[in-house]
């Protein structure tokens, strides 16, 4: 059963269309996420759905009834909003704000009865904000304010909550909490939610359906897992330079820095090193990674050169030879401290080779272990990445590159 449907809706201000051809459907207990860059028109769509803005063309239907024909009170009992307005004049308490949610349910003077009080109590418990009730609203943090707004919307007992950028200004803790509360609303109370977001990962994690809003039109609508691919992200955000990882839902900016270092990675041990080097403008060269390795995906999305082996395959001799070729071209090799197993023991051989040919080797393993594994050589054992970076004076790296290039 759908709560909201629109067909060929055009939304905008003063007859000027911002987004045309909005066709959406929100079913009971469903979360619809509008995803797109700032200024794409997500807020305009939400305001139109909420009845705060008349449509330029078309109509919004709430449970089959045209929104424009519903009375204010009926509409307010169906839908509640969480807006981006965050401060009010005066010293309203959290309770004052919550109590406002009863507006469409109370009498002319807004008298609160026991049932109303019970609903307020429950709502504030749902967002785990009971301790905030007596506080002055304007003194709360952004995260606490957002909780209060969500609780106020719940107090209105709606079938649908419309939320505009609920995660903006929130820290990670409150973002996670918000997603948890949304899941609870959907699963336990069957409340539908339509919300606008600009973070891809949150949209992917909390919505059942995603609608991509960009350049004044709807670029797509569907299950987030099917819909949001690298091509769509590039189209939506105009970030063709960046790479989008469909599994991790992350965007990475590939580097064009000079390749100076060969990182021996594996099982995610390489990733923090890639990122640290990337920030210093150092190009990445890494290996030998199986294609199912975590490090493989990250190194690829960072634009690194990866010497890789097929997924779940032992490293073959020919792949190893390729890696040796790469190591020989670069002055420095970093041992990320990858786990050593049957399928990748040739990586150890690669490090031993680097030492033999006189490369500088940094290892994130303990000194003793290094001696056991690799024997002696020009090896620096580092306690962490910062320690490793500090051994990389900029000038000397460049000098050694020049040397390497002349060789």
């Amino acid at each position, binding site marked *: 059963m759908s709560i909201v449907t629109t067909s060929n809706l055009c939304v905008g201000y003063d007859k000027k269309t911002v987004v045309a051809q909005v066709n959406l459907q929100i079913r009971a207990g469903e979360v619809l996420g509008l995803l797109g860059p700032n200024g794409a028109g997500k807020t305009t769509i939400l305001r139109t759905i909420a009845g*705060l803005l008349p449509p330029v063309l078309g109509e919004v239907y709430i449970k089959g009834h045209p929104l424009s024909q519903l009375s204010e009170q009926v509409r307010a009992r169906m839908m509640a909003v969480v807006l981006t*307005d965050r401060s009010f004049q005066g010293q309203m308490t959290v*309770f004052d704000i919550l109590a406002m949610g009863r507006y469409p349910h109370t009498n002319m003077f807004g008298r609160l009865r026991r049932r109303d009080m019970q609903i307020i109590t429950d709502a504030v418990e749902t967002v785990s904000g009971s301790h905030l009730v007596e506080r002055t609203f304007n003194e709360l943090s952004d995260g606490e304010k957002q909780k209060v707004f969500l609780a106020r919307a719940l107090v209105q007992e709606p079938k649908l909550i419309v939320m505009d950028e609920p995660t903006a200004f929130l820290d990670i803790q409150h973002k996670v909490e918000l997603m948890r509360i949304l899941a609870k609303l959907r699963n336990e109370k069957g409340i539908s939610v339509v919300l606008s977001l600009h973070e891809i990962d949150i949209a992917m994690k909390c919505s059942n359906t995603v609608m991509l809003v960009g350049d004044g039109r709807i670029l797509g609508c569907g299950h987030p897992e099917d819909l949001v691919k690298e091509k769509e992200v590039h189209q939506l955000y105009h970030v063709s330079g960046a790479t989008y990882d469909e599994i991790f839902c992350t965007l990475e900016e590939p580097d064009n820095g000079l390749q100076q270092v060969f990182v021996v990675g594996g099982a995610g041990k390489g990733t923090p090193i890639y990122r640290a080097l990337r920030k210093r403008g150092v190009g990445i060269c890494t290996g030998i990674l199986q294609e199912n390795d975590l490090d493989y995906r990250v190194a690829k999305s960072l634009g690194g050169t990866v010497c890789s082996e097929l997924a779940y395959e032992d490293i073959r001799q020919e792949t190893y030879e390729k890696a040796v070729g790469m190591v020989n071209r670069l002055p420095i090799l970093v041992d990320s401290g990858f786990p050593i197993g049957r399928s990748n023991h040739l990586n150890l051989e690669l490090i031993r080779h680097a030492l033999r040919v006189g490369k500088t080797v940094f290892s994130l393993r303990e000194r003793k272990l290094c001696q056991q594994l690799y024997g002696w050589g020009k090896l620096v054992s580092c306690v962490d990445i910062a320690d490793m970076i500090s051994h990389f004076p900029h000038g000397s790296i460049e000098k050694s590159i020049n040397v390497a290039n002349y060789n």
Partner: protein
Amino acid sequence: MLPLEEIQRKKQTRYVLIFIIFAAMLVVIFLFSVALGSVQIRVMDVVKIVFQQEGLDFIQSSIVRDIRLPRALAAVVGGAALSMAGLLLQIYFQNPIVDPFVLGVSSGAALMVGIVTLTGTRFGITSQSTSVIFVAAMTGSMVVMAIITGVAAKVKNIIMLLVIGLMVGYLGGAVISILVTFAEKENIRNFVVWSMGSFAGFTWNRVTLLTLTTVPVLLAVFLVSKQLNALLMGERYAQSMGVQIKRIRLLVVVLSSLLTGMVTAYAGPVAFIGLAVPHMARLLFGTTDNRVLIPAVIVIGGMITAACDLLARLLFAPVELPISAVTSFIGAPIVIYLLTRRTSL
């Protein structure tokens, strides 16, 4: 009982207590302002005269009945009306630094009254006609209010709004000084006395008219207190909760200009009452709930204005100060304080 209910009940008890204290203070100040003056009358006698007991001193009872009682009543009712206009405007503009005087609504009323009283005799209007002045003041305040709300719809910056209010005031002042230059002497004297603001000129006729128009408006405001509360969260939230936003906006504009116009017609422009009293009420009652603030503003507004009127009469007796001279000493510091404390305007 739920914990929330208990907290609310305690708050309500506190509101009622504070309200009773201020109502009592209002009665005391009212009695004093009838009793004190160039002829001192004992408070007990005032009470007797008010309740129409016979056998009292004729001069005293005529001073009380014909001069002081209408004046004190006018100050109370007028003060309540101005304060309510201020509260309404502060809710409407989502801003604590507005009132009819600051926004130039009073100046608009003054301008229209000036035009009527300074040029009226030429067109055969007797300048002191009660209803003519009333209509003129009402028209003036409505027109300025329409201009201000029109501008506010486009300009969201409150400082702009204040500056526009000031400019409207200057423009009105300029027009009035042109009129004064060419007006007849007798008319000028009347107008100048009026324009400095005073509750001195109230006859029973005018007090009755003021009261009969103010009381229904105050009641109407109380009836929409729930909508006004919703407006505290901003128009979008209010609309989402079911407030018919256009209707309430129009209502607030009309009611606040009615209240301002009615008082200004006879008392002249009175500064800062509309600004200061809602703040006092919010501070004293510790709430923004308009269901509490509306009665509070009526009582405190009446009390403060009556007290200021009394001070204006007594401070340099027998010379009388214009009431705005007294109210400005309360109001202007509050505006400065609020402006400096607010970081985002």
